[in-house]
């Protein structure tokens, strides 16, 4: 029988593959671990969110899964029901009353198992629900807190847990080990006649990569190198800190998330970097730009920017000059970079500099539909047909713009688009913004 190993803690035992449970813990132990994790995670912010919900149901209307299926179980706040139940019964100010009157039952192992699908397969952490909730409840942050408990309990879908565990073992969720990176960079350098600095001892800028790029879109690495060289930046990739995709954050593995974060921080410190550039990867941005310092326990001693932000800055500074590309284009804002990350203007500055005919997706960039592959969902194969259903919304939104070219700045979105394109025999391919820039670098005189 195939076996796998649970990455963390005393549960690091063996369990059969395929039942979407990890480790050989008893049900009682799993439940206990999940509860301990839930209780440890509760803080004033999550408490406010869990207290404030008025059960108005509006979050359902923002969620791609409910909109496409009409199934009430996909109501965003319902997806975190176990953690809400645990909070109300055990932690909240009214907990004694809830227990006294039996208004909140104890969470059961069956419920946790049942909720695995809602917490993992059908939430991309896209944050649309946050924007609609009249109480302003940030549901994705609660989903992440619930995932922490699920990870502790060894109740993660195997398809997501696999890459997470691999990331802890090999430093990359998709097998893009140090060795693979070195080989890739060697052949990219030869094939494309481009200088790709690796492991320089000092540099102003540490550029990081997503393993999706290394394994699936290596041309992105070349594109980054060409752009950085064009700008004349002092930069390097580092084989001791390159992997920015933080799958561990997505599965709920706090220890792994911290390890992945620390690798980048240590690499940046080693070369005295003033800036760390995050690649075209939404969750990398979320994990490092917004959660990185908190993992570190103090402010980071360098700046962290997404590559699109960096390119916009360099355009403004006059160090990046582009040829014109006047085609009609539309831009898919990756949820974690734009809606939940705050980078909305930078890519648009780049389109303006290209002289592109940018056709925005309606009604606003903030309300952009998710590609359906975020939050680790793309890895979970049993969720494929659901993912394809929600992809329909995205396809329609892209089609409605009438643009000739679809561009995004996240390789995970790109992967999802490629898969959707294949599945629906769609005539649109998602392109990388950085590759578009690299293809349009003006000649230096």
């Amino acid at each position, binding site marked *: 029988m195939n076996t796998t190993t649970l990455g963390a803690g005393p549960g690091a035992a063996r369990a059969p593959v395929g039942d979407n449970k990890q480790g050989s813990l008893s049900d009682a132990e799993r439940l206990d671990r999940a509860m301990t994790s839930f209780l440890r995670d509760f803080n004033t*912010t999550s408490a406010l969110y869990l207290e404030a919900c008025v059960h108005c149901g509006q979050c359902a209307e923002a969620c791609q899964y409910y909109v496409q299926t009409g199934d009430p179980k996909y109501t965003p706040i319902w997806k975190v029901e176990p953690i809400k139940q645990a909070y109300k019964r055990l932690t909240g100010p009214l907990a004694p*009353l809830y227990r006294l009157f039996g208004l909140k039952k104890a969470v059961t192992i069956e419920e946790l198992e049942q909720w695995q699908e809602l917490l993992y397969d059908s939430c991309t952490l896209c944050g649309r629900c946050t*924007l*609609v909730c009249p109480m302003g409840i940030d549901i994705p942050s609660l989903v992440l807190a619930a995932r922490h408990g699920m990870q502790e309990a060894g109740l993660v879908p195997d398809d997501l847990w696999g890459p997470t565990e691999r990331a802890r073992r090999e430093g990359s969720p998709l097998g893009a080990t140090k060795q693979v990176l070195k080989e890739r960079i060697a052949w990219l350098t030869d094939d494309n006649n481009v200088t790709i600095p690796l492991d320089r001892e000092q540099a102003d800028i540490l550029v990081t990569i997503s393993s999706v790029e290394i394994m699936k879109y290596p041309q992105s690495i070349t594109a980054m190198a060409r752009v950085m060289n064009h700008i004349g930046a002092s930069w390097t990739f580092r084989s001791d800190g390159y992997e920015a995709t933080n799958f561990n954050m997505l599965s709920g593995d706090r220890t792994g998330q911290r390890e992945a974060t620390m690798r980048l921080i240590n690499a940046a410190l080693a070369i005295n970097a003033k800036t760390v550039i995050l690649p075209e990867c939404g969750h990398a941005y979320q994990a490092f730009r917004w959660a990185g310092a908190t993992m570190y326990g103090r402010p980071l001693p360098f700046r962290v920017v997404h590559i699109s932000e960096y390119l916009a800055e360099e355009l403004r500074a006059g160090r990046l000059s582009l040829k014109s590309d006047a085609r009609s284009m539309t831009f898919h804002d990756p949820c974690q970079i734009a809606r939940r990350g705050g980078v909305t203007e930078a890519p648009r500055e780049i389109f303006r500099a290209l002289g592109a005919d940018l056709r925005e997706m309606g009604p606003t960039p903030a309300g952009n539909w998710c590609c359906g592959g975020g939050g680790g969902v793309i890895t979970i194969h049993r969720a494929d047909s659901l993912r394809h259903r929600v992809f329909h919304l995205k396809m329609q939104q892209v089609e409605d713009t009438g643009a000739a070219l679809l561009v995004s700045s996240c390789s995970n979105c790109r992967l999802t688009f490629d898969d959707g394109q294949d599945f629906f025999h769609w005539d649109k391919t998602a392109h990388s913004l950085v590759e578009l820039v690299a293809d349009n670098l003006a000649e230096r005189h």
Partner: protein
Amino acid sequence: MNGASVLDFARGPVFEIALAMLIFGIAWRLVGIFALRRPVDYSEPRAGTGWGSGLRMIVSRSWPRREFRERVLHWDIVSYIFHVGYAVAILGYVPHIMLIRNLTGLQWPGLPGGVIAFAAGLSAGALLALLGHRLTSPVLRRLSNFDDYFSWLLAFTPLVTGLMAYYGIGGNYQMVLGLHILAGDILFAWLPFGKIMHVILLAFSRGTTGAAYGRRGAPI
């Protein structure tokens, strides 16, 4: 118990207990939340501390964003009719204002009884529509629990008894008025213990998200 004694009972000891429960309950619930660990965010903000966005979102989230209006605005409007009608009835009716003056010293001019009755009637109608929605929408049925229905009932009863007292329906006026005040007392006493607490929590939860997103420069 006759009408007069119900009235005295509702105005006297029950009112005082309700008020105590209201104040104590709100304090208890807020302290229970804010005594928990405060998360620290060491990330470098993109756009200030986020305080401004927090305050902005407290106001802006009172109306749905453009992206969602098509799907949610109609129920928001019904909900507004309920809330505004309720507020007008509570704060605009002269006897209510006198009660508030006695308690706090604050006062303001009242509205004619007919306007109050109209507002209360609209509010009650909207509340019935909201209940119908809760009972028929699959999403709301999934989410709803005891608190949702109980709080609905406690919000509805003062409206109906108030209208009955105003129009002299239900026989003994003192009895009906007594029941109206009793219903109000119970509503006050329950407020901190159920979902009606959102009247207080709303500003905190909106403000928290507004500040967190604001410091990231993300849309709110």
